[in-house]
């Protein structure tokens, strides 16, 4: 089972007991199909935020092209009072503003769903579906009659459909007005035409479209104290709070907005008010090699440093990552994953860099990976990774992805414990060196595999050492002796075992009923998985679940697997990379780990997971459960 089957699954599901006309309150999926560069993004985000402001959770997803202007782009908003923030699959209401993608967009609509389109030019009946309610709005005509400027006509058309939708869905106009006021604060010139366009759309909707939609938004208090933020912004903020002072990066989708957010937050929080000088240094490097080189140089010299990148950047950084591993230098690498291999799908999401990061660089290497599930954890884990990097003196990978990184996601408020202190790791200062004792840069004094280090310039005569990527002895002296090499390689393994206890531990949740089956998942799969668990429960399928939050795997992971006859491993890549890591690192019989894989570049859906697992279990009832062949 893999992604291409999803369409078929959705169809099957759709055919069963769907009403002629979909009716729902605060529980539907709306998708906007636009042309990129047409100003639709801000109108669509305004739409999503307005529902949020009415106390109803939303989960928006921007599905955009690797292009600046003229190609198809979509914005999907899941309205979900119950708080299912994953992608559901299927579309209840399509706002089809892009003729290029009309046919495909039409196909995506659930039977009984709705199509909102620009009816200025008549379209033949063959372009519609009998089981979809079409709602035409002559947007171009109205815009032409109200606005004179051509650019304004195009931009405000987007706000007009938001107005019409508000009328049909019951979104409060006051909320939109307030949001527009906030968005264009201090730019009154912009508020007026936008508000005008919105009201035009709203009035048209009220006068002509009345009860056309069976979908409604009603005010609730279901958002609570949650915040609405992109994972990239949250991770950047985590780097600010975690004390990163050096950031070196090279622009690459989907990670660029992380470095840019770091710049923004530093400008806000890190400028010395007395001197106007910066307590940070950000370098847009010439490439990813230089980015990681700068991070390693800064880490070697005692500054907390990070880089943000994506898959191709990881490939380029690999040699340096090996140096940081072997010479034991702190570094934080935030990998906002996208579709690979090669340039792959630059604007689509995947979890396909696990193996590339876990074993990055030539020779025997193993690296610490963290898997945040949402922006809240992006913030938390970013700060934690800066501590871990210095504590363990090694590269730490924060593995997010485009789905978390570039979409606004509702999550628990960001929190910081005021008493928290940075963990600078085993650092010998001048007074420690003067106190006597032996300093051996790679000497395992404490038995945890982590040696003490000094920073350049610490002491006039003690503690200087030579850092190198070649073999060395415990005192950092160049050595080609086999036993020196083995000593360090074994110690690095010990250090990796130490890391198991320091990384975020997995979260295990038992099913309501005793079960032989478990499921392991991680990262952005989390919200869809939680929803799928509910769907499966209603079908009588119970699963214990473990959300993996880091590699190396803490001991509780092997225990969890041992407690179940079979464990599904749900991932967003083709090759079941976490499953490979599990079998490789924990010596688990691969047959016990059943891959559930979704990798077409769109975020995994609850429907897909529930269907795929149910299907496996049906098959299992006929005979012993086997790992299916990846098709």
């Amino acid at each position: 089972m893999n992604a291409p089957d999803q369409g078929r699954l959705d169809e099957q599901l759709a055919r069963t007991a769907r009403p002629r006309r979909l009716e729902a309150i605060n529980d539907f999926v709306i998708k906007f199909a636009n042309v990129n560069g047409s100003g639709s993004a801000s109108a669509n985000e305004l739409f999503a935020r307005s529902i949020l402001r009415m106390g109803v959770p939303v989960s928006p997803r921007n599905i955009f092209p690797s292009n600046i202007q003229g190609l198809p782009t979509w914005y999907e908003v899941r309205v979900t009072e119950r708080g299912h923030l994953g992608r559901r699959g299927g579309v209840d209401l399509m706002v089809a503003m892009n003729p290029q993608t009309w046919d495909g967009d039409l196909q995506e609509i659930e039977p009984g769903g709705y199509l909102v389109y620009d009816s200025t030019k008549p379209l033949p009946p063959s372009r519609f579906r009998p089981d979809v309610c079409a709602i035409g709005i002559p947007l171009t005509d109205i815009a032409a009659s109200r606005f004179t400027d051509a650019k304004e006509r195009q931009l405000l058309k987007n706000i007009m459909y938001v107005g019409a939708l508000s009328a049909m869905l019951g979104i409060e106009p006051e909320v939109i007005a307030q949001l527009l006021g906030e968005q264009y604060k201090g730019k009154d010139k912009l508020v007026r035409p936008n508000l005008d366009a919105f009201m035009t759309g709203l009035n048209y909707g009220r006068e002509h479209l009345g009860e056309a939609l069976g979908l409604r938004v009603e005010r609730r208090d279901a958002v609570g104290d949650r915040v609405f933020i992109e994972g990239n912004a949250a991770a950047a903020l985590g780097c600010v709070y975690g004390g990163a002072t050096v950031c070196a990066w090279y622009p690459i989708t989907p990670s660029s907005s992380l470095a840019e957010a770091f710049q923004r937050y530093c400008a806000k929080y890190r400028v010395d008010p007395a001197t106007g000088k910066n307590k940070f240094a950000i370098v847009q490097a010439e490439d990813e090699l230089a980015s990681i080189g700068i991070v390693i140089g800064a880490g070697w010299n005692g500054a907390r440093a990070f880089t943000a990148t994506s898959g191709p950047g990881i490939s380029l950084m690999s040699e340096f990552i090996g140096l940081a591993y072997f010479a034991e230098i702190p570094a934080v690498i935030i990998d906002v994953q996208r579709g690979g291999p090669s340039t792959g799908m630059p604007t689509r999401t995947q979890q396909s860099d696990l193996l590339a990061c876990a074993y990055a660089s030539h020779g025997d290497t193993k690296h610490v990976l963290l898997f945040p599930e949402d922006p809240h954890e992006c913030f938390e884990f970013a700060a934690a990774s800066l501590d871990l990097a210095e504590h363990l003196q090694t590269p730490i990978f924060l593995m997010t992805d485009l789905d978390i990184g570039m979409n606004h996601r509702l999550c628990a408020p960001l929190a910081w414990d005021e008493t928290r202190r940075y963990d600078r790791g085993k650092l010998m200062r001048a007074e420690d060196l003067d106190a006597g004792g032996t300093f051996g840069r790679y000497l395992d004094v404490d038995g945890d595999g982590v040696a003490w280090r000094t920073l350049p310039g610490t002491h006039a005569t003690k503690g200087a050492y030579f850092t190198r990527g070649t073999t060395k002895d415990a005192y950092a002296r160049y050595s080609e002796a086999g036993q020196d090499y083995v000593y360090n390689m074994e110690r690095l393994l010990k250090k990796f075992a130490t890391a198991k206890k320091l990384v975020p531990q997995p979260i295990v949740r038992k099913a309501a009923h005793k079960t032989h089956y478990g499921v392991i998942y991680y990262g952005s799969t989390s919200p869809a998985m939680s929803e799928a668990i509910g769907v499966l429960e209603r079908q009588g399928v119970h699963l214990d679940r473990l959300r993996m939050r880091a590699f190396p795997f803490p001991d509780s992971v092997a225990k969890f697997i041992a407690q179940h006859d079979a464990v599904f491993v749900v991932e967003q890549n083709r090759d079941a990379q976490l499953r490979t890591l599990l079998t490789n690192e924990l010596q688990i019989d691969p047959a016990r780990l059943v891959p559930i894989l979704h990798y077409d570049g769109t975020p995994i859906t609850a429907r897909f997971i529930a269907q795929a697992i149910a299907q496996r279990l049906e098959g299992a009832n006929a005979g012993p459960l086997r790992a299916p062949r990846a098709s």
Partner: protein
Amino acid sequence: MTYLAKPKLHHPSLPTNRLGYTRRDYEGKISTLCAGCGHDSISAAIIQACWELAIEPHRVAKLSGIGCSSKTPDYFLGNSHGFNSVHGRMPSVLTGANLANRDLIYLGVSGDGDSASIGLGQFAHLIRRGVNMTYIVENNGVYGLTKGQFSATADAGSKSKRGALNRDAPIDMVSLALQLGITFVARSFSGDKEQLVPLVKGALNHRGAALLDVISPCVAFNNHPGSTKSYDYVREHNDAVNRLDFMPKRAPIAAGYEPGEVIEITQHDGAVLRLRKLAEGYDPGDRLAAIGHIYQHQARGEVVTGLLYVDPSADDLHGHLNTVDTPLNRLGEADLCPGAAALEALNASLI
């Protein structure tokens, strides 16, 4: 990269500098390079320059890439932290180190393979950024450690030890650096200590990126007839543009300079560079003229040495980034963490 510990015996009559250190205090491990290697002469010049400047050895961070030249930081300044990074990537590692602590003196040692071939990109961008450092390219036109392949600085028409002819155009690090905005650039010859030591001192005192392209013949693979980077060839074709004496402000030395032949340049830190012009009318303050001068002499097969260009008022990367005076690696929670209240305020705006 030596197996041998160096004996630490000090002759009681060794001269000491202002800090009370002898030259021995600036030495490192025993070199493992071939006997007669030009690189060892450069290491000696670095030791001499640091001793004369009375730099505290541990205030220097010495970084390198990979190759014969990149091994040398182990052979000088034994009380400094050293970093032998990856091939061609010293510039980025040094940039990061420099950003972390602006108070140290940064010395990057590289070779022509390391900086002109695999690391040309990083070389270029370090110069563009004006990282405050001394960048020494120990240039021999050949890959020594892998036994004699041409590097990107080998002159077209030069012959390898095995008789192969190089047809590719050479990269001239000095004129390239000038185009990239270098603010201190000199060329010298490892066999000319009298010229090299003052240039190293000038570079160490320059604020911004200072490049020294030091022709350093490889005795094993590039010191034969037909090579344009052999001792004999360079000695015969050397055309020095000036003589440079570096004089720290604290101890001015008035040596035998003919009036009218001396240019004094006040460096950013107040130290004074004195240039003795050997070439008629050479002005090290003119970037374009420097490039022209190099090309003219190159056409005649001459290697121009000396301080070719300096901008004594140059700023560095920290200046461009407007970083605080305190080294970033010394900032703690109080300076770096905006605190819980700021986060709560931010949370409230995120809906």
